[in-house]
């Protein structure tokens, strides 16, 4: 134990020294890399080397502002550091000229500044007061975009492994009580109280127990776990180790989907580094406690995010859910008592142990404590990652953090909880978000993906999208899910193709009810939610499709017709050239017409017409 304490002070000093050096930090999470971060990094290194600048070049993970990637942070000793957004290689020169050489921030490229106690620059929003961050808390995401995720020193210098240090000196039950006191509930979507789960596994009798981390994040529009794994892998490892100590396990498995190569790489690196420092493996911190972690890469089945299917998959079996009970706490991996939590849950644990359960429970609502990480996607201005206290309203997330709907369009719905969740309408924007409020609204917390939709979205089409997803991902074990989601999907397809009948809505409701009540696992039991919530809040859209053969949002191609307004068309011929199937005809300077028999409803002509003469109805 003394070992870590000794090295901690050295590491902290080195880290402080690093912060007091001129530095350029590039965001290299998956979002940053996808936006071209590696090229930016190369351009910066090139620029720094060719000019012989005395500046450190480092990288970090996603700070949350995915919309601003590629993001580059520049900090000079004693000054606030500035995060710049949209920095492509062609802007690197300007940035270095201005901020590194000229020592003045390039205000027009700046997104936010992080003062770190220094005097703020004028004209650049301070992070904590900026639109994107003002309503956020940064707890489990505090290291994201701030530290180098591949450096164990960065982790230790920012309080890392102090949780396990504290935990191994505690009584096991005291650790579990601290987790119970925090009130944290499973962040993977189910919302089961984590402390109770730990207690069950602690109390379960077994010669061997396991810790399993569910990193099989698969909801469309969800990337919280990926961001945490890429940005703070040691926190997940530390959380698992604390759990291992508390329940009496010496082995952990992280089930991470293979589509997250960067997360797997950083986890492997973190495991290696932790082992090198004696923080993982045999006799951790000289306490006699041993714990090792390995990674199992999942092959990409959505259902493997269901805990019992996940366990089957680790065992080399087909990813199909088992019946519960027995719960994994009693018979989990290899039939041994297993504590199975999600990435975000484990990543929260070191903070809870360090700061105490009461600190955590001070945030949030009565039954949903703490903060929650959400992914903001869809038709919004600021797509990215945010961490908010439980109890914040959906409207605050939409308008304050996500910056409202893009292009001034109107908000229509938000899908919370992925394919298992539901679509919430404008009336639900003032709903304080917690596990229970979302369920009573017909949706669910899920893992935290929020997909915002604007007025141009067809809600029947959205339900169809999610049902297509669940149908393809159904494991096939139970009849209601395997066969029932197929029939729901087929009905939705029929409706969007204009072949809906009056019986379709009652049939959808009847089938959805049976699937919900009789399916084997949570995937099946929640699969009808997108249908049920869109029926609950947007029934008129279903009726328009079925009764009037119209798609109010103008999305369902089969129900659209394109026509040219006689009084607006000047016969310029631009639309005629744009049509890929020669469905438009007309002499020059004469009104053009669209042949509905030939028209494939691609809509290519609409934006081409400068006179707004082509209408979609």
């Amino acid at each position, binding site marked *: 134990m003394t070992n870590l304490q000794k090295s901690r002070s050295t590491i902290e000093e080195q880290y402080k020294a690093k912060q007091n050096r001129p530095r350029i930090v590039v965001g290299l999470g998956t979002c940053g890399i996808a936006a071209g971060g590696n090229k930016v990094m190369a351009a910066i290194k090139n620029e720094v080397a060719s000019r012989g600048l005395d500046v450190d070049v480092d990288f970090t993970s996603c700070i949350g502002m995915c919309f601003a990637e590629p993001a580059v942070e520049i900090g000079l000793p004693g000054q606030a550091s500035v995060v710049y957004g949209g920095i492509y290689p062609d802007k690197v020169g300007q940035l270095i000229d201005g901020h590194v050489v000229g020592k003045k921030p390039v205000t027009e490229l700046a997104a936010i500044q992080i003062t770190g106690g220094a005097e703020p620059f004028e004209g650049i929003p301070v992070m904590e007061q900026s639109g994107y961050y003002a309503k956020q808390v940064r707890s489990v995401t505090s290291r994201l975009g701030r530290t180098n995720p591949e450096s164990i020193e960065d982790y230790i210098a920012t309080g890392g492994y102090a949780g396990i240090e504290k935990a191994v000196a505690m009584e096991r039950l005291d650790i579990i009580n601290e987790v119970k006191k925090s009130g944290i509930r499973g962040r993977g979507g189910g919302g089961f109280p984590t402390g109770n789960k730990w207690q069950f596994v602690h109390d379960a009798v077994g010669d061997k127990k396991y810790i399993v981390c569910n990193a099989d994040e698969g909801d469309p529009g969800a990337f919280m776990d990926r961001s945490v794994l890429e940005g703070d892998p040691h926190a997940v490892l530390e959380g698992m180790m604390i759990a291992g100590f508390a329940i009496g396990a010496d082995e952990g498995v992280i089930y991470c989907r293979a589509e997250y190569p960067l997360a797997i790489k950083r986890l492997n690196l973190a495991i290696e580094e932790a082992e090198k420092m004696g923080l993982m493996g045999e006799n951790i911190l000289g306490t006699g406690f041993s714990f090792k972690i390995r990674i199992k890469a999942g092959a990409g089945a959505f259902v493997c995010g269901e805990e019992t299917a996940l366990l089957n998959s680790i065992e080399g079996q087909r990813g*199909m859910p088992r019946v519960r009970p027995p719960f994994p706490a009693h018979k989990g991996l290899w039939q041994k008592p297993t504590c199975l939590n999600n990435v975000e849950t484990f990543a929260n644990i070191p903070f809870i142990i360090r700061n105490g359960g009461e600190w955590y429970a001070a945030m949030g609502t009565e039954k949903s404590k703490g903060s929650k990480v959400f992914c903001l996607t869809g038709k919004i201005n600021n797509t990215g990652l945010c961490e908010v206290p439980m109890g914040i309203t959906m409207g605050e997330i939409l308008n304050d953090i996500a910056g409202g709907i893009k292009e001034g369009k109107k908000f229509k719905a938000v899908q919370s909880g992925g394919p298992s969740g539901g679509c919430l309408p404008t009336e639900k924007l003032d709903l304080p978000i917690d596990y229970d409020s979302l369920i009573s609204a017909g949706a669910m917390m899920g893992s935290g993906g929020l997909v915002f939709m604007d007025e141009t979205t067809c809600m029947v089409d959205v339900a169809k999208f999610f049902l297509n997803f669940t149908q393809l991902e159904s494991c*096939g074990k139970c009849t209601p899910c395997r066969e*029932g989601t197929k029939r729901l999907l087929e009905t939705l397809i029929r409706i969007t193709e204009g072949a809906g009948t009056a019986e379709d809505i009652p049939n959808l409701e009847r089938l959805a009810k*049976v699937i919900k009540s009789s*399916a084997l696992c949570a995937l099946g039991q929640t699969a009808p939610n997108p249908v049920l919530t869109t029926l609950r809040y947007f029934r008129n859209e279903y009726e328009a499709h079925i009764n009037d053969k119209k798609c109010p949002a103008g999305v369902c191609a089969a129900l659209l017709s394109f026509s040219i307004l006689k009084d607006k068309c000047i016969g310029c011929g631009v639309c005629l050239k744009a049509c890929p199937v020669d469905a438009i005809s007309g002499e020059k300077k004469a009104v053009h017409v669209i042949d509905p028999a030939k028209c494939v409803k691609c809509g290519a002509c609409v934006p081409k017409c400068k006179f707004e003469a082509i209408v979609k109805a």
Partner: protein
Amino acid sequence: MSTVTLTINGKEVTVPAGTTVLDAALGAGFFIPTFCHDPANPGYGGCRICVVEIKGARNMPASCVTAAANGMVVETDSPAVIEARRTILELMLANHPVDCMTCEKSGECKLQDYAFRYDVKSADFGGEKKDYPQDQSNPYISRDMNKCVLCGKCVRTCEQVEDRAVINFAYRGFKTKVAPALDASLAESACVSCSRCVSVCPVGALTYTSMAGKARVWETTREEKTCSWCEAGCLFDVVSKGGEVISVTAKAPGDGRPLCLKGRLGMELRHNSQPPAPMLKKDGEFVEVSWTEALGLDDIMDKLK
């Protein structure tokens, strides 16, 4: 032994602790349908036809995998239960050829029986049906996956035989089907034609090729015989029509490594006056062989000569 007392359809029932709700209800004289439940291989809970209502439960649990508990209040025939069962049957029929008129299994098919019981004539979903080619590659076992309800009993019984586990679920969602590795034909697989899978299939998906077209179920009489080729003592049915033996079918595996082709062929030769010629797989192909070779008696016969 400790017991639990629960209420099923208003009747108080006391059963040994650990008994499933299904067994408790059956024991108390109530009917609950099952497809995937195999008493020799319990704990699956996939088909969901056996769902019941339990007071206080969030959903309708499958009775075959739910342990009876003290004070539990169970309804096995409530309107919600009936609706769920009917819907599940509709879903099964919507993806089934519904060709009972020519089906070998007609008369002893659970899908047919339950459809009758719950008055499910057909399904009005009007969508896609699976359309797989029949697998007649194995001379003993006919596989028609279009009739399969994916109860998985065949998969689980095959897994019981060490070193076998020839078949398993393949693909996902609506495309899920039971198949040998790499979705090969049964003949190409490591199947040893023991027929355990046929003996547990509740529908017409797995049938005996030797029975094809010979009789309707109700025209046959069956005499149970215990195989004496080894000490396992598997049970077979000697099937007759109009006083003539037409086939021997496996009834149930015994202990040990039960049910085998040799045993069934031996029973066939013993009881059937016109047994079909035995076939064995040689170099990957099924070829007709002599009875002495099929039963592994060549060397013994040589000595007896």
